[in-house]
Each structure stands twice: as structure tokens, then as C-alpha cells.
């Protein structure tokens, strides 16, 4: 599909195209800017360039649904394999990308087949509503990313809606220690609205960036098509998890409306950090007050509205009170108090 059509999708209507084009002199200029990633907002993936890593840049022994780089989590589905995560700068696909996420097998899995392994991002329901999944005006969308593995073979990627009502799986080949640019288009799904589809602040779309070992119950030979059921792995999936020290790198992860992969949308660090902070916020500069021996309350505002009321922990003080999407209260209640805050707030999916 043409860039003009992609732009039309982005602009929302043909009348908007002429308006924007007039502002930018010519449609060609606008299209060129779009092609170069100059128009923001097309990428539904948050932290696709792996620039934000609030939890740390070196995290060990990741298991089931444990977050590493912001918004990215590992899946083990209860299996015994584990990963180490590093945010790296020395192995990237091009100078366009400063960072990549490196996942190393730290504990080899002995239960592949019973349990699957992958790297995943869950997209919030609000952000996928525009895809119109299940309606007559549903949109196709295109996924692209860079991947590199120390093990040659066939790998999986795909998406599933909330509760795994429907899913889409594709496969691709990697050559050992070679970056590959992966892109595929997920066709519009117009059959019916999935029963548990979430288009608010819940699990909108489970996006398996890369499958690393298959779980039989989530394995399919039906590729490149939507199907009922919760599938995540191709039946040709390589068992990457069978030995330690194996590595896989990813970066430049993008999901955009339309049938054509366009250049990666680079966002400012501040923009990306704010998007991440809707799901996870870490501070070592907080200052919620409290006094031991009296009842006191210290409201602590969050930098952005969080997806849900967050769980939190802090390492330098003690406290417990109500948390909301916009702020929390620390209070002394006879058991807990806080003077300083070195805290994390977790509203991840």
C-alpha cells in the first residue's frame, strides 16, 4: 500500500490530508517526513527503541511476566528457564538505534513443550481501540522490529487479544549473530468482536515480539491468519532455551496502522519516559512527609496519570495508604511512617 494511503490512515480523512498538506507546502513533503518517521504517534509500541529502562540496565534471572526494559516482559508460562536482561549499546543494528535489549539464557529450560518462552509487550486497550478489531471497518496493522539471535533457526511472533479469544502467529528465520529486519502485516479482523476484547485500560493486545521456545498448547501450524484460540508459537519454533549463554537482541519495535512497514518512529526521551511512567514510575527523589507519633498525610503526585492505581514499595522509608492513578498518600497510622521516598510504583498490565 502507498505512503499516501498510510498517510490518509494517519490523518483520518481525505479532507485532513489537504489541510495538513497545505500547512506543509506539499503532500510530498509531508509524505517524506512521514516516511522518515517525522510524524509522531504512529507507533503503538511504547519504548520500541529500548531507550527507557527504569528498573535497571542489568537485571538477572527473569521469569514469568517479569518486566525488564520498560513495557517489555519475559514469559516462561511457569517453566524453569530464566533470562538475564541487559540494555546494551555495543550490539545494535545500525547507528539509528542507540540501544537494544539483550536477553541471555541464564538457566536452560528442561520443560520446553510444557512451557513456552518469549519476550512480550502488552498494549493497553485504549491504544488498540482504533484498530476496530472485529468490526466491519477493522484496520490491518503492520509490525516491524530488528532481531538478532546467537542461534540460527525459526522464530515466532504474533498477537492475541484479551483472554486469548483470537490470535495471529507468524514465523521468521534468523541466521546466527546477524541482525534481521522483521516485518509482517496482520490483516483486519472483521468476523466478530472477540468476547473479552478490552478497549479501555486493560489488556488490549498481547504482542509476542519473539518466541524463544514453544509451549505445545500454544503452538499452531496455521500461520499468517487470525484464528480462534490463544496461540503464540509456530510449530516450527526453534528451541532457543536449551542451553545457557544463548543471546537474543531486539530493538526498533513498531506496530502501526496500515499494511506497510514504515521507518521507525523515534520519539524524544522525555516523551518515551512519560509514556512508560503510565505503567511504572521509579523515584529516588521523592519527598513525602510524615511524623512518627502523630497522624499525618503526605500527598505524593505522580508525573503522569497511571493506568491503574499502582502497587508500590519503597526502600528508604515505610508507609502505607491509599494509591490512586494520579497520586498516593503516605500516612502515619501507628504502624508506618515515611520521611523520604525511594519508591517504585507499578501499574503494569
Amino acid at each position, binding site marked *: 500500500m502507498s505512503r499516501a494511503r498510510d498517510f490518509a490512515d494517519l490523518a483520518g480523512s481525505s479532507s485532513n490530508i489537504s489541510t495538513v498538506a497545505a500547512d506543509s507546502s506539499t503532500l510530498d513533503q509531508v509524505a517524506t517526513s512521514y516516511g522518515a518517521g517525522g510524524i509522531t504517534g504512529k507507533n503503538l509500541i511504547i519504548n520500541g527503541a529500548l531507550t527507557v529502562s527504569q528498573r535497571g540496565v542489568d537485571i538477572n534471572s527473569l*521469569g514469568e511476566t517479569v518486566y525488564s526494559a520498560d513495557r517489555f516482559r519475559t514469559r516462561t508460562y511457569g517453566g524453569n528457564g530464566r533470562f538475564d536482561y541487559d540494555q546494551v549499546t555495543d550490539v545494535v543494528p545500525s547507528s539509528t538505534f542507540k540501544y537494544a535489549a539483550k536477553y541471555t539464557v541464564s538457566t536452560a529450560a528442561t520443560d520446553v513443550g510444557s512451557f513456552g518462552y518469549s519476550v512480550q509487550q502488552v498494549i493497553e486497550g485504549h491504544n488498540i481501540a482504533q484498530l476496530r478489531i472485529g468490526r466491519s471497518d477493522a484496520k490491518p496493522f503492520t509490525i516491524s522490529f530488528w532481531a538478532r539471535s546467537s542461534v540460527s533457526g525459526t522464530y515466532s511472533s504474533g498477537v492475541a487479544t484479551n483472554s486469548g479469544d483470537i490470535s495471529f502467529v507468524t514465523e521468521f528465520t534468523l541466521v546466527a549473530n546477524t541482525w534481521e529486519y522483521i516485518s509482517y502485516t496482520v490483516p483486519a479482523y472483521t468476523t466478530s468482536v472477540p468476547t473479552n476484547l478490552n478497549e479501555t*485500560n486493560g489488556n488490549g493486545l498481547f504482542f509476542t515480539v519473539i518466541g524463544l521456545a514453544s509451549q505445545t498448547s500454544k503452538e499452531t501450524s496455521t500461520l499468517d491468519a487470525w484464528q480462534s484460540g490463544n496461540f503464540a508459537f509456530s510449530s516450527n519454533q526453534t528451541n532457543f532455551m536449551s542451553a545457557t549463554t544463548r543471546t537474543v537482541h531486539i530493538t526498533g519495535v513498531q506496530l502501526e496502522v496500515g499494511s506497510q512497514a514504515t521507518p521507525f518512529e523515534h520519539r524524544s526521551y522525555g516523551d518515551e519516559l512519560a509514556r512508560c511512567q503510565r505503567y511504572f514510575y521509579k523515584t529516588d527523589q521523592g519527598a513525602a512527609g510524615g511524623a512518627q507519633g502523630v497522624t499525618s498525610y503526605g500527598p505524593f503526585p505522580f508525573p503522569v496519570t497511571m493506568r*491503574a492505581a499502582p*502497587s508500590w*514499595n519503597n526502600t528508604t522509608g515505610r508507609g*502505607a495508604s*491509599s*494509591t490512586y492513578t494520579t497520586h498516593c498518600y503516605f500516612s502515619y497510622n501507628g504502624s508506618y511512617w515515611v520521611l523520604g521516598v525511594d519508591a517504585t510504583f*507499578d501499574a503494569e498490565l
Partner: protein
Amino acid sequence: MNEMTITLAQYVAEDGVNQTIKATIDGTEMFVPLDPANRHYTEIMRQVEAGELVIAEAE
């Protein structure tokens, strides 16, 4: 299969009203709001309903 390993769950109350659950989740002490949209709260309640976890009353 549990998504998270949760131990030592206990309600924390203010003025006699439960406000949060203090729990150790995957080795980290967390304070979890009573919000069904919160993934930790969802998992705590799933484990409670499955009979795998008991939340102690507030002190």
C-alpha cells in the same frame, strides 16, 4: 500455575477500613491497592479464591 509467588499478605487499614494489602511478591515487599485493574491485586485475589493464599486481617 501461579504468575507470581506471593507470601505474607496482610491488609493494612486506616481508621478501621482496609486500604491496601501488604505482601511479598516475587521476593519484594509491595503495598497493593484494592483495585481490580491492578495486576498484583488481581493475582492476589485469584490465589485467594484458589485457596492458595490467605490474607491476614489488619493489625
